[in-house]
């Protein structure tokens, strides 16, 4: 579920995400939101917003307790 905008691309491994929302709270550009769908564990997972740019600051990956976020350079 890659979504590209701006300089970097954010990918969330939705099946491993527990929906703690820390990445959403600390993301400065509002790139991540909580999905309406549930994963197999029954959690609402974080997912990238399509129209928002990612600056690649890596705050989401540093705060994620479950290492589910991957950031790619263009």
């Amino acid at each position: 579920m890659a979504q590209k905008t701006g300089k970097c691309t954010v990918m969330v491994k939705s099946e491993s995400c527990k929906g703690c929302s820390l990445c959403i709270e600390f993301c400065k550009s509002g790139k991540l939101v909580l999905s309406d769908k549930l994963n197999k564990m029954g959690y609402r997972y974080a997912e990238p917003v399509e129209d928002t740019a990612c600056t690649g600051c890596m705050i989401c990956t540093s705060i994620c307790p479950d290492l589910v976020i991957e950031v790619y350079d263009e």
Partner: protein
Amino acid sequence: MKLKNDWPKYYKKDVVSHYCPGCGHGIVHRIVAELLEEMQVGERAICVNPAGCAVLAYLYFDIDMLESAHGRGTAMATGIKRARPDLFVFTYQGDGDLSAIGTAETIHSANRGEHITVIFINNAVYGMTGGQMAPTTLIGQETTTSPLGRNPALEGYPLHITDLVATFRGVIYAERVSLDGPAGVTRTKKAIRNAFQTQIDGLGYSIVEILSACPTNWKMSPVDSFSWIKNEMTREYTPGVLTDKRGDKK
């Protein structure tokens, strides 16, 4: 497209941890795994696990791990380090393990100045058993065994065990950090790096206390529990370097 955050070498791939959403353990695990790789000690590292939520840490780290009796992590690490001084030995303990049942072992291993590193996760409750009051529970904090809040007249005051061991001559490096946001993650990584370096340089005992979130037992959302650390917990446990004798030893 180039991946900016490589998976840490000493963290097992694609394992979903048993920790609750927003738990501080996951963040500290990743920091430790990254540092083992960056400091090139992973191949000779042995971690001693506690009893507590982190009891299953051996499922996540790809290094040699041992499970100690409840609270006796530093005693076990002492034995490993004395038998094999070439190994890099650290313990990973929670507050119920290190500062409750294992107080004697913690204090005496620190006082002997064993050449080990202790990573101390302080979340102010007994996490695994369901949120009972711990020695580190804050005054007035509600837990399942102090439903009206911790009352010092009945239950005493929060135990500052890192401040206590920092006064010992054998303790070379002691620091307390609060894992309350992205800045806290950076500070935690720096503190653990200093503690690991103390052991690599052969200087002596080092301990890092990490104020870590337990959203499930604090009955808060992960985001609220991070602000609770920042606003409440750091008032009782002041973050900072508690002792640094590395300069005296060199």
